[in-house]
């Protein structure tokens, strides 16, 4: 009560810009707190350690996609192909582990070694597709939406084609470890997520490349005149996005214990939602790693609590959409006072 009053008083005293600034900085965090509070209110099991671990593990896959996408969005682009790259890499990771697949059988005997080479190759496939996206956008000057829509469809089709539409069952021990294993009780994908997020944070906030990404997103013309190699920086962003999507896909193969071309359907939209909830407008020039992290967790929490409450996955998308619209409207409302 006292706190509520003091906040009210504060709101009267400080000017609008301070509120805006607070929201700009901590808006995403604020939303996360509300969502967490609400979820734990709905189900006491939500805040249990086991469930939290689950939430983080679930979120880490989308988390990687969203982080890569964030880089592209900050420099004013969009990448719709990430979910398809994710699926292709997941499929290839399982497929390439079995030489036996070409002889018509899949089992432990047909595992190829070492699997790490395969992980690397699958990730590089993502980098390659990202580079192609980037080249088409920068050199051929095709609009990014069109380019990545094309890649999205083509790469998904490729994922189906390489297995003839089948799921490849069974992956090696190591693959299962990177998908489902834990280190000191922390799921491996979560560790990768934390590591990559840290690297992403450092890149965005503390390297010239990061600052240049923001600069390009704010004004491409100004960036060109200011002697920034705009094409090269954008190319990097797309390649980075593709790489992270593929990395996530490799781990997904381990988690599913199979290569599944259907995996990650609609993940690109979830990733976009996470980035936007995290405070990065699709017009570019703004955004933060922490915000995106929070955006991913908000979406993850919602799907998690709906699972706990026993609601089917398909209606869950509706709730995601509501949160996304809510976040955008709130931002637009506060922004209109500027």
């Amino acid at each position, binding site marked *: 009560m006292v706190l509520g009053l003091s906040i009210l008083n504060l709101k009267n005293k400080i000017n609008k810009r301070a509120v805006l600034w607070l929201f700009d900085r901590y808006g995403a965090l604020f939303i996360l707190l509300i969502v967490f509070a609400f979820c734990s209110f709905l189900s006491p099991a939500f805040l249990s350690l086991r469930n939290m671990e689950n939430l983080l593990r679930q979120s880490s896959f989308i988390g990687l996609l969203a982080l890569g996408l964030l880089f592209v969005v900050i420099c004013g682009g969009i990448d719709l192909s990430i979910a398809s790259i994710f699926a292709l890499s997941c499929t290839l990771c399982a497929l390439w582990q079995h030489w036996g697949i070409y002889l018509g059988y899949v089992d432990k005997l047909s595992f190829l070694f070492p699997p790490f080479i395969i992980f690397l190759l699958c990730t590089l496939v993502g980098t390659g597709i990202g580079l192609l996206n980037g080249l088409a956008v920068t050199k051929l000057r095709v609009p990014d939406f069109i380019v990545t829509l094309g890649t999205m469809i083509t790469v998904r089709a490729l994922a189906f084609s390489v297995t003839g539409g089948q799921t490849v069952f069974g992956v090696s021990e190591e693959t299962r470890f990177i998908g489902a294993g834990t280190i000191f009780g922390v799921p491996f994908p979560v560790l990768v997520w934390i590591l990559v997020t840290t690297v992403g944070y450092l890149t965005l906030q*503390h390297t*010239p490349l990061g600052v240049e990404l923001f600069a390009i997103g704010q004004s491409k*013309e100004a960036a*060109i005149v*200011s002697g920034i190699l705009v094409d090269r920086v954008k190319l990097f962003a797309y390649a980075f996005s593709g790489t992270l999507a593929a990395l996530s896909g490799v781990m997904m193969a381990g988690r599913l214990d199979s290569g599944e071309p259907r995996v990650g359907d609609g993940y690109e939209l979830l990733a976009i939602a996470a980035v936007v909830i995290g405070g990065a407008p699709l017009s570019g020039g703004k955004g933060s790693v922490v915000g995106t992290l929070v955006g991913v967790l908000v979406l993850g929490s919602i799907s998690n609590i709906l699972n706990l409450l026993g609601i089917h996955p398909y209606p869950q998308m509706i709730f995601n959409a509501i949160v996304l619209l809510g976040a955008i409207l709130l931002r637009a409302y506060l922004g209109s006072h500027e």
Partner: protein
Amino acid sequence: MSEPLLRVCSVTKNFPGVQALKGVDFELYPGEVHCLIGANGAGKSTLIKILSGVYRKDSGKIIHKGKEVEISSPKEARKLGIATVFQELDVVPYLSIAENVFLGDYPRRRGVIDYKEMLFKAQTLLKALGEEDIDPSLPIAGVSTAVKQLVVIARALALSAEVVIFDEPTAVLGIEEQQRLFRVIRELRRRGISVIYVSHRLEEIIELGDRVTVLRDGIRVSTRAISETNLEQLVEDMMGQPTKPKVKSELEVRIGSEEVVLSVMDLYSDFTRPKLKGISFSLRKGEVLGLFGFVGSGRSELARCLIGCFPPTSGRILIEGKPVSLVSPWKAMHLGLAMAPEERKSQGLFLDLSVSLNITLPTLRDVTRRGLIRWKEVNSVSEHFTKELEIKTPSLAQPVRYLSGGNQQKVILARWFAKRCKVLILDEPMRGVDVAGKREIAHLIREKAKEGVSFIVISSEAEELLEVSDRVAVMFRGQLMGIMDATRCDVAELLKLASGIKIGRFCSAV
């Protein structure tokens, strides 16, 4: 003469900080071509924007055919029969020529657009303008600016306008296209339509106009019949008393340096508009070279060509005697050549980035350790330059959006000083800057020139340019008309050169 069609009586207009019109009078008679001239900021465009309903006047009267009217919107202006051909032609690129002629008011039959009728009518209107070769079914995106202009004029005819206002229509046209436009304007006059013609180019006015009104600082200086006046008189009206440039005491010191940092030889480029034709000049160390010319003279295009935004078609550029090929602003920057563009906010600054980052952006890659930015160094560099250039900002972390125009300009200057550029091209550095800011920037340019930085300063304000430059080069339609010694020439001479009138003396190209 008969009753004026349009009479403007002591109209005023204030903008925050400036009084653009201080009580202007103006009369337009039926069937005359009335030219409106004046230096930048004289109030020409404000006046025509009031007449076309874009702005609303603060006080004064507008009398149309003897009745007082209030032109509160462009729609209102159209109703009164006033059509305007702005420099930025308002055509819809995906529609055909005919559709653009009748934009929003298509001929209909039973509620459905009658395309046949529309094509026929458009053809008739274009024919009336003496343009029979234009196919009105073509999409407008594919045709030249000149044809687009004709389409907008035809639109005025379709609305049976009685007054057509032209805002610097020839700035974007070539010579033949200009002659064609003049023929069309004469045709309008023959049909009894009144024309208000705004232009910088005096020679056009002499060729085309019936009467001319000169504005200066928001008031009318004179209205004369073209047949009774001449160029000298008009220039004098525009400038006020004949101006004598101030003698600069430090001039001798400045001219002393003979070291040439940048020389441009016979530069041609077909990629710019207008095309650059045979530009040659050289720039000494610590020299400030003014570049004067009207909109469309190619001055900004030359600047962009020099920093590698547009490739030259032929010609050579030497930096400190070495031939270079400037393929990108990045390359130019590394050779010590950089530009502060005309559109400061959209093309120069990153509005939501901090002052500090805006200053150090091109320098960031030089101050890293193991890939990470050394923020201490970044801060000390930006602090140094904000102090030296006296950039007024509450903090270095302030987004540059919230700074005043003058301070924003200084941020861009600081950016290139921090990068230690040898040659800086400033495109309209004083535009949108208040008087005090202008003086500070001019002072700054002189100070830095003394330290050995060379400048090319582009401006359409002749006085300003004479104040700050050592020499002034004048451009006209993509050509260099001449390079004048700033101490030995005056505004009138620059204006004449920029209007394409050769004058007897000018210094050599080097």
